[in-house]
């Protein structure tokens, strides 16, 4: 009994100590920008005497490219330093949340539109003044419309601030291995029936006609959104905002068509267990598939700044590939819809000690010499129009690039993201359940609607 009392007292003491230490859980960390900082309206890069250092943390661009962007900015602006750290995405989420809670938020952060930007909105500075001071009052004309629209996704009503600005944008689409198509005497499918017939015609070869790396929720959702917008353009976003139901016939039909990719043998065996990176991408680049759903960023496989002798034959100058949109669905829209949006956007900490330098770095990386370095690697499509790589390694590569920047991106109307992470997860779960036969399309749609009801109820 004596032992128990002592143990109890020690535990209570330790717990009390812990409680004192832990007193701030859930207390929030965002502070108003301090006096003397330019904050909402005063950030200005124009004519500023830049010096000092800023920190940058993100999951994208990749480390080597970021190093080139840092170097380009520091060369143009002697006396400045950028302390950049690149993580993988899950690790980055943990780092960012920890830093926000410990008042060590980086000066510049990589963000995804919607939920992630909104989560950190109170830590971020509005950027429109920075943009106007750097690029002029008509700065919004520089950007692809979908990038700007998504940059403000999820803002509270009446809040028109830009808490992040896109640096890279993309479409989600399919890619074809043109060699396999030529060898099989097939044309790139434009309709669902053509897709099925192409897959049938290519069966029996030592490659997958349609490689679907569906282990990743983001990829399942990207494919689903292409199908859903081809069935009834825009309806899923109405469902997410509560203006329509997830159980409407067109959405159930989209779940059904997603399921048919598996049940009708269009996707390869074990598709729901294959990840997009590295496995799916490696398989496609090795010539083990005729089609794969990825996005505009696949053009980075032909990076002109890389040693060209290290690039696989198919990817060299994009010679072996052709991008195309997800085929139309019977009874749906007459033409395939463009789905896409921001790849990565940048935000600035509301409490940065050097807002002028942070603004200068951000705008340089979007549309300056740092941005040029980024685009030279073809990491993805620039968020601003008219920024092109300094060099193309083939006419095919240039043709594909122009398709994206001139034809596709300006037409992107539908987002590749859901605004709420719970809906994003619910749709990804429902699609996995349909793919594995655990749920019918009706049940899957109802499951998403039930999460939607919880989200709307707050």
């Amino acid at each position, binding site marked *: 009994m004596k032992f128990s009392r002592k143990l109890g007292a020690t535990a209570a003491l*330790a*717990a009390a*100590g*812990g*409680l004192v*230490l*832990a007193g701030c*859980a*859930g*207390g*929030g*960390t*965002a502070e108003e920008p301090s006096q003397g900082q330019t904050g909402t309206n005063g950030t200005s890069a124009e004519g500023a005497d830049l010096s000092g250092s800023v920190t940058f943390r993100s999951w994208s661009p990749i480390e080597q490219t970021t190093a080139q962007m840092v170097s380009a900015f520091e060369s143009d602006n002697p006396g400045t330093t950028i302390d950049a750290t690149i993580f993988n995405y*899950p690790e980055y*989420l*943990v780092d960012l*949340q920890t830093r*926000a*809670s410990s008042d060590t938020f980086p000066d510049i952060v990589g963000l995804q539109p919607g*939920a992630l930007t909104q*989560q*950190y909105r*109170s*830590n971020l500075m509005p950027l429109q003044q920075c943009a106007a001071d750097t690029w002029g009052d008509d700065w919004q004309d520089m950007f692809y419309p979908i990038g700007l629209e998504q940059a403000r996704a999820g803002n509270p009503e009446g809040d028109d601030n830009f808490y992040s600005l896109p640096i890279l944008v993309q479409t989600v689409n399919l890619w074809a291995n043109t060699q396999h198509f030529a060898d099989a005497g097939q044309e790139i499918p434009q309709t669902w029936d053509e897709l099925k017939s192409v897959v049938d015609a290519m069966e029996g070869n*030592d490659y*997958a006609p349609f*490689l679907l790396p569906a*282990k*990743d*929720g983001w990829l399942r959702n990207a494919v689903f959104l292409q199908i859903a917008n081809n069935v009834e353009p825009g309806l899923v976003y109405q469902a997410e905002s509560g203006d329509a139901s997830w159980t409407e016939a067109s959405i159930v039909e989209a779940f059904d068509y997603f399921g048919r990719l598996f049940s009708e043998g269009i996707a*390869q*065996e*074990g*598709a*729901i*267990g*294959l*990840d997009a990176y*590295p*496995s799916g991408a490696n*398989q496609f680049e090795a010539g*083990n598939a005729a089609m794969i759903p990825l996005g505009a960023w696949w053009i980075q496989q032909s990076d002109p700044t890389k040693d060209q002798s290290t690039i696989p034959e198919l990817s060299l100058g994009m010679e072996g590939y052709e991008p195309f949109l997800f085929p139309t669905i019977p009874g749906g829209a007459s033409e395939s819809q463009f789905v896409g949006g921001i790849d990565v956007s940048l935000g600035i900490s509301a409490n940065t000690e050097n807002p002028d330098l942070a603004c200068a770095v951000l705008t340089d990386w979007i549309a300056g010499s740092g941005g040029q370095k980024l685009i030279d690697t073809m990491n993805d499509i620039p968020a601003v129009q008219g920024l092109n790589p300094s060099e193309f390694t083939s006419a095919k590569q240039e043709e594909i690039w122009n398709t994206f920047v001139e034809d596709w991106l300006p037409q992107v109307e539908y987002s590749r993201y859901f605004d709420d*992470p*719970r809906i994003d*997860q619910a749709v990804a*779960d429902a699609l*996995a*359940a349909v*793919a*594995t036969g*655990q749920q019918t399309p009706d049940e899957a749609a109802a499951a998403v609607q039930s999460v939607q009801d919880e989200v709307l109820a707050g």
Partner: protein
Amino acid sequence: MRERIAKAGPGLLFLLPALILFVVFVVYPIVYNVQASTLRWDGVNPGVFIGLDNYADLFRDPVFHTALKNSALWIPLTIVPQALMGLLLALALNRGVFASTFYRALFFIPAILSPIVVGIVWQRIMDPFNGVLTEVGKATGLDWLGGNFLSDPSTAIFAVIAVNIWMWTGFSMLFYLAGLQLIDTSVLEAAKVDGASWWQTTTRIVFPLLKHTHLSLLLLGIIGSLKTFELVYVLTQGGPNHASEMLPTFAFQEAFQLQSVGYGSAISVVLIVVAVTASLSMVRVFGSGFITGEEKRK
């Protein structure tokens, strides 16, 4: 009283650094977690106190039930096969077979590899489209080898468990080899003189004398099972449709991907309770010195 304090003072001072570290790195996170679990909180913006609502939601959540069931499966289905195979390997290598040092190193290699690397490699091995197992199945006529092990909700958790066994059997083997070295050879020689067969010696003498190794592996196995994350995350991400979800992957998803730190904290608190209960139960059953070899007080 003063005398007692003066007597205990130096001892307490020696304990102080450890106590401070314990409070900062163990007590503080636990209390923080418990407090966070009473909030609706995204981890960044101010949270709202909701009492025990997160726990009420959690106990109704089918994904939580799946994660608990998977943890319950994981513990026996990894610990027992790993221990059995590790023991058999150790017994074989302890008999001085040719190149035993090489085999020891070979069997131990998976345990020192990154779970990320192991996960990526096994995903490729088990890919039913053109993975190694599928190709072996085609070549040998054993078509079942090309099954959708990772992508079928009914087999995904068992596929991950199989990879875990492959990874950690060498670790058990090393423990048993160390345990075998500690057995007094005179006992084994006496058994031999008494005419005991290899089977009798192994089951009636060696196996009981390895009790502390069994218990150490049991404890390490339970701890390892409860904190399993990387392998599951890389192989299945807890899917398909949460079929292979474990408590740590579920907590990570809720806290960081779904921005529900309060709910994720509630999962972590349950995990702590399970871990503490398991540890205390073992101490209760086997005594506090069961790893060091000290017998339980009667």
